């Protein structure tokens, strides 16, 4: 029953990585959407209101950090869980309070899949 699946948005400008994240999230039972640009991410998040956002920090046009802060300030997105993926440990370190999870690149496919599975264990069983 695909229309009952929870939605996850993958915000990652590297298409191959986005594809991997998509696969991991799908294996965890999510319906996935991808965007590769910061501005596009901003509008998609408010329209789609996904339960999980896999958010890369380094994005064209709009920085992932700005998006993260906007989500946290948006009352309608209070329940959205954010998994930040970043290669920059310094930047990642001060975002741990805002993000639900911070994963440092390189991110293993299994790592993300297992994390997403733990988020909503019931989904993957379907």
């Amino acid at each position, binding site marked *: 029953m695909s229309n009952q699946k929870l939605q996850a948005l993958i915000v990652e400008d590297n298409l191959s*990585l986005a594809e991997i994240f998509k696969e991991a999230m799908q294996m965890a039972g999510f319906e996935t959407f991808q965007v590769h640009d910061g501005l596009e991410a901003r509008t998609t998040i408010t329209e789609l209101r996904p339960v999980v956002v896999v958010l890369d920090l380094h994005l064209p046009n709009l920085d992932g950090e700005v998006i993260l802060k906007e989500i946290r300030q948006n009352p309608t997105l209070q329940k959205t869980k954010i998994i930040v993926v970043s290669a920059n*440990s310094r930047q990642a*370190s001060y975002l*741990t309070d805002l993000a*639900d999870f911070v994963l440092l690149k390189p991110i*293993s496919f299994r790592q993300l899949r297992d994390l997403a599975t733990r988020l909503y264990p019931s989904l993957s069983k379907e």
Partner: protein
Amino acid sequence: MALELNLTSLSLVITTIIAFALTIYGWQRRKVGNWVYPFVLLTLGAAIWANGYALEIASLTLPTKIFWAKVQYFGITSVPLGWLLFSYAYAGRSAWVTPKRVLVIALLPLITLLLVWTNETHRLIWETLTIAENSDFTGLRITHGLLFWLYWIYAYILLLLGTINLFRSYRNNPAAFRTQNLMLILATLAPWIGNTLYVTRLSPVPELDLSPFGFAISGLLFTLAIFRFQLFDLIPVARSIVMNQMSDGMIVLDNQLRVVDINQVALFLFQITKDDLFGKSIAEIINNDQERMKLLPAHAAPDNLLSFNIADKTHIVELFKTNLQDEQGQQRGHLVMLRDVTAYKESEKQLLEARDKAIEAYEFKSQFLAKVSHELRTPLNIILAYAEMVQDQVFGTITPIQEKPVKNIINNAAVLTRQVNNLLDMAQLENDRIALISTPFFVPDILNDVIQQATPLAEDKGLCIQLDTPTIVANKVQGDAEKITQILFNLVHNGIKFSDTGCITIKAAKLRDDEWMFSVNDQGMGISEERQETIFDPFEQASKSLTNRQRGVGLGLSIVKQFVELMEGRVEVNSQEDVGSTFTIWLPLPPATELELI
């Protein structure tokens, strides 16, 4: 031996005493310089000469007079020799005085001495000897033989050479030494004037040899040179050597700021000659030049640096100024030293440039490392993730034959990823751009992670990995799990690299409520004591004789240490060659305070 004392012999006795006192004075100070030995020979010769003459005059019979006349020749033959050698040493030309030359010069005096004592058989020195009665004394009337005249001419040549040396030294010496120098010339001339008067029979008393009396004048002048003009304290020989061979420029000024002394280096710097300068004021050198005002003793230049342009080359000179005081503490003048620091300043400049370049290169290296590893990480991440997906059959089932290659891809991509991560970590650590990400975690979780990551590597080498730790009953702790995993993995990986047999043993223990201890032990090649000090340095490895298989980039342990220190922990190594190594780390890990998110 009958003697008769009279005024003449009494004055000669006094001369003897002075000359002998100078001999003893010199002998006691023979360490002062090479010139003291000829000085001793000279004064001792004079003492013997004067004493012999005193006793010759005082003797009543002809044979005793002849005996003492012969004794005098010990002095007569040694005085010109001593004088010549002394003059060479005093003028700073000791190098000329070789033992061979001394022997050649001493040959004729020695022959003469021999002939004097055997005169009765050949009469080559004295043809006739008779007693000459005078009003005051009884001398010898002598007709000199051929060899006497030969020696006499020879002695005068030696005297002349010595005097030339002293005149030369007089010309080259600074004012402070000129009086002393003049004293010495006069001291020598006195006895020879007396001698010439006697030998040429121009003496007012024909049978009286005036030369020993000259020694009395000599003795007085030498005494004056010693005590008034510090013959033994200010040694022009040493002065000329030190001053003119020193690499620093030196100017001595008196209280009126007149130039009293200047050495060759200083003359070169100012491009002037010595004659232009003596007695003139330093103001004439300065000639209102603001830069050279720094030379003035009262001028407090902030940097004490002075520049001279000589033949299109700029010499940078450092100034050292000292007040000169005498023993009573009275200000006597000033000393200005000029040290040419051009080469030093140039190398200092080059060093600074090199340092800037090194810093630039260092920064470039860090940026380059960060950039390269960043660029490498993304494709590696993709390879690793896709291989995992293949292994997890995301793209469909894989055959048993395909399993091993996929596993190999994953293992090696994982190793490569860690190496690249190490490089990036290193670059970030060097740039101080790495930060801790503190999250709550279970210690057993990270231990399992480490074992899971390292097992494929250990299996490849036929090693085992074991966790030697009692069941850890602990709540979550707060810390950077990622970095602790990396630390432990690096240590385990290190153990695997340097072991061929046995097990890598991981231990973990909670020491206090907020402190944990982890250790990794291997039974590998071990680390020598000397190398233990450097293994934590970047790009260092425990042994320089490593196989390619063991050789990594050499960053693992350096990162361990820096991460541990970043977490305010510490790391220690305990190792014995061919037995194994144990790396122990202590980390502050307080209990987790945040509520678990999942």
